[in-house]
């Protein structure tokens, strides 16, 4: 009988004495309620435990039981379409069991234990298999095929494999290794703080298309890349993250609501089942896993939520899928670290954050990437990581933003000024960057058009020129500008308003294919060139601005993909006619 008991309680941190075989990161159950916690420091016979649930009412002297296992999760069919809290408890089941408010000490399996899945073998009895190899499949949702893989470290001959209906806890196959035999079930367990290994990381070469013009055109993130999206409150972090979750062209989406608003998770839960994947026309929910640890849920579980999320992401990557993970917001995760660190009375680093903040962030982002996964047959999967950062006061010089920018390769800088004038997505085109853009040149050449890279450079050049000109306008007024410069401002404005601004709430505008993007941008720049030419011939810019075809340019974004070619032709014809008319007037 163990005499391990609670000796001190301070918020989410509990100190227990004489915990059985205490090891770092062992999961323990505390007190009568059986609150879940994790050992994070050992000193003599004292174990410091961070508790994933509210500790109100807990008393010194209550017993502590060591599960002797690190925080682990069950991986198998049924993860998709689920919504979990930070420690992988399905919130829908939790609601059935304990009502509308989250009660404590409830242990609920992450996967439906009763549901039978159709298992289809891909290997037969007697086949030689080794770690990571796919031995069979389960159609998890109409969108996603779930692969059943040989566990890491196992190699041998399949002594048994049978097609049929199984629950997640039943075995579907058995492998005879040299020394023993290993059962393979529909599900497996993994410790969330340990990255799942891969064979080799590959350089990213294709973009994660998001249907968001400012991202796809100017600041693309690669499949398997990392991106940071910092911004003050109200600048549209969450909307951008949700747009990514909706429209990104990956197979699986893991969305982590880390310390954010409850109503936001509800919004996702209500909208995703109704939204269709643009390609397959199936509900988006069928490829989505949600992890919701809202701000009022316990802080230690918030810290864990990032790891449970990424472990699920890695698992689907190992099957050969492209996975995209959104974490909103990593600042709340960092604050959870700070809070626990403060309770442990650790020496603080910058702004009270623990000294290991940078390392922990880097470790997290390093779990992303495009990789050849471990398996005898070559299989490639990718895990793209997009982390929102909520810098206090919108000041990007704070530790979480800075440490994130050190390890991510795309920076989408949200700008409060743009947001307050309702320029959405309010991603500042002058300060944002993507280090992948050049790596993916070939992909764009082969898949969009040969001119795409040039178009993009030209448009960015005009926007930068606009910023310079604006400073001059501030000094001397718009009217005093020479006509050619007015022309540049016109084109820049058209790029901003007709192209960069994109409404997440409009049925059509919410998603733009890369093809439509290139058509749009080429039309806008074409108009700019015509204007430049017209100005050279002495036509005032104000006259060009009131051309009818201008209205058509602003209509492209509201036009359905199926009608786009027709509209582009109309614009081409009109543009030529109307400019020709202008030229005629001048020469007359």
């Amino acid at each position, binding site marked *: 009988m163990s005499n391990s008991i609670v000796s001190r309680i301070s918020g989410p941190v509990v100190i227990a004495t004489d915990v059985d075989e205490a090891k770092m990161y062992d999961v323990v159950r505390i007190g009568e309620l059986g609150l879940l916690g994790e050992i994070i420091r050992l000193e003599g016979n004292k174990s410091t435990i961070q508790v994933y649930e509210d500790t109100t*009412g807990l008393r010194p002297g209550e017993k502590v039981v060591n599960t002797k296992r690190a925080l682990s999760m069950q991986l198998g069919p049924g993860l998709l379409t689920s919504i979990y809290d930070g420690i992988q408890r399905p919130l829908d089941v939790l609601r059935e069991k304990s009502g509308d408010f989250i009660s404590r000490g409830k242990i609920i399996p992450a996967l439906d234990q009763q549901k039978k899945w159709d298992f289809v073998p891909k290997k037969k009895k007697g086949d030689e298999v080794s770690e990571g190899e796919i031995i069979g499949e389960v159609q998890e949702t109409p969108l996603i095929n779930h692969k059943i893989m040989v566990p890491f470290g196992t190699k041998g001959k399949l002594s048994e494999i049978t097609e049929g209906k199984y629950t997640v806890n039943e075995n579907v196959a058995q492998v005879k290794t040299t020394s023993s035999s290993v059962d393979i079930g529909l599900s497996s367990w993994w410790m969330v703080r340990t990255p799942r290994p891969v064979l080799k990381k590959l350089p990213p070469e294709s973009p994660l298309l998001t249907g968001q013009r400012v991202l796809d055109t100017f600041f693309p993130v690669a499949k398997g890349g990392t991106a940071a999206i910092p911004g003050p409150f109200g600048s549209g972090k969450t909307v951008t993250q949700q747009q990514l979750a909706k429209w990104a062209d990956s197979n699986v989406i893991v969305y982590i609501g880390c310390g954010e608003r409850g109503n936001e998770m509800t919004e996702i839960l209500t909208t995703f089942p109704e939204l269709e994947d643009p390609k397959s026309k199936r509900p988006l929910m069928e490829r989505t896993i949600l992890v919701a640890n809202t701000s009022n849920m316990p802080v230690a579980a918030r810290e864990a939520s990032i790891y449970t999320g990424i472990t699920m992401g890695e698992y689907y990557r190992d099957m050969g899928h492209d996975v995209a993970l959104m974490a909103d917001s990593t600042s709340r995760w960092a604050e959870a670290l700070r809070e626990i660190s403060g309770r442990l009375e650790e020496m603080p680093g910058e702004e009270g954050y623990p000294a290991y903040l940078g390392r922990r962030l880097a470790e997290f982002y390093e779990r992303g990437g495009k990789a050849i996964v471990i398996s005898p047959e070559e299989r490639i999967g990718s895990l793209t990581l997009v982390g929102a950062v909520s810098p206090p006061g919108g000041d990007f010089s704070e530790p979480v933003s800075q440490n994130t920018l050190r390890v991510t390769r795309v920076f989408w800088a949200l700008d409060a000024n743009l947001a307050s004038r309702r320029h959405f997505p309010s991603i500042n085109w002058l300060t944002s960057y993507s280090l992948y853009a050049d790596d993916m040149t070939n992909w764009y050449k082969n898949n969009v058009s040969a001119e795409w890279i040039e178009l993009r450079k030209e448009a960015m050049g005009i926007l930068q020129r606009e910023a310079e000109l604006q400073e001059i306008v501030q000094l001397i007024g718009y009217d005093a500008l020479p006509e050619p410069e007015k022309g540049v401002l016109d084109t820049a404005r058209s790029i901003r308003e007709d192209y960069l601004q994109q409404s997440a709430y409009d049925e059509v505008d919410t998603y733009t294919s890369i093809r439509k993007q290139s058509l749009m941008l080429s039309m806008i720049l074409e108009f700019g060139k015509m204007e430049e030419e017209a100005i050279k011939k002495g036509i005032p810019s104000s006259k060009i601005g009131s051309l009818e075809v201008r209205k058509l340019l602003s209509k492209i974004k509201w036009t359905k993909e199926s009608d786009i070619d027709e509209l582009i032709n109309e614009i081409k014809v009109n543009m030529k006619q109307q400019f020709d008319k202008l030229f005629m007037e001048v020469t007359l």
Partner: protein
Amino acid sequence: MSNIAFKTISKIAGPLMFVEGVKDAAYGEMVEIKLANGERRQGQVLDTSKGLAVVQIFGATFGLGTTGTSTKFLGETATISVSDEMLGRTFDGLGKPRDNGPTIVSKEKFDLVGAGINPYSREEPSEFIQTGMSNIDGMNTLVRGQKLPIFSGAGLPHNLLATQIARQAKVLGGSESFSVVFAAMGITSEEANFFVKQFEESGALGRSVLFLNLSSDPSMERILTPRLALTTAEFLAYEREMHVLVILTDMTNYCEALREISAAREEVPGRRGYPGYMYTDLSSIYERAGKIKGRKGSVTQIPILAMPADDITHPIPDLTGYITEGQIVLSRELHRLNIQPPVDVLTSLSRLMNQGIGAGSTREDHRNLADQLYATYAQGKDARALSAIVGEEALSDTDRKFLKIANEFEKRFVNQGIDENRSIEQTLDIGWDLLSDLPESEMKRIKSEFIAKYRKKPPVEIGE
């Protein structure tokens, strides 16, 4: 355990009291403190270990001694007895009657620190609340179950705005009024009287519950006051099916009380001395707004906070903004121009606006119109800044139009005085009226079908 009175107080520092020899005080357990003169005070356990409990005292530490004071651990965490009788009553910051009425006795007792709402149980807030204020209804729409704070500053009329909302708020087509739960933290008695008088005059007092902790009351009570109010609100909403509007004022005083405790505990401070867990703590208040599937009532929150030195990046408004679903920001500049309410529309935001507007709830053109007004007003303000340097003559024709609309927008749309109650149609019509001068080519935010349907005047050709 609850019968033992401990007299073993080793230290009193700030609002904290260290009691020794306590074996197993529960974390969060309530404590009764008896002074030598028989006076009683309340406290709560903040840190507990074998042999030592750290107790936070709600109320003054005046008269407490390491000798002569005895402490009783009550064996339960903080709760409040709630009943229908609470409507129309006024309580102090700890929930004791302040109006000479009887103490609330009820079988229904609720934990003050309620468990969080399961995100899966939440219902998405989507019912439009008509506040009768153009800048809110038209531009930053409030919906039932939302938490929308007012960011104000010293000397700005946030109280007028809050009471006007409480008075006028209604759901279109519904006849039921909102019940109001009002929690005052550290406001002056003058301000408190203003609220009470306003509720009285509008007849709302009968469906209101007031918790008043005034500036002269102990600051530590402020930690409990908003939680008392929200627990009561949740009872009224979820057990009694009422729609409750919770006004919390002033959250800045709450946060300062939080900082005081943190400093007394010698914790590692975060920004400006506020504790690192302030975000988590504030969210345990704000996140209690909402609606629950299958239950009729709702809790809508309007916290008010005075931004120190009007600085929106100060930790209190900053952390609040990250939790709440938008914010209404008051502007000193507009206040000086005598615009009431002086709402700075551009920095204000309602994140749940889209759910509550459009065909079926307000009007189909609402979203587009609001976006256009935003963009136009922003451009008009730019033009105003520019004209201050280069003179109005140097502006382009379009910029001059924007400037004019921006001026009109402030005078006619934002400004409406404290008595005018505008319907949503009136609000939207004023909006279209303002835009009537704008050429159609500048109305990039509005779909052409809406322009055709709602535009006030035939477009005037420009450049001729």
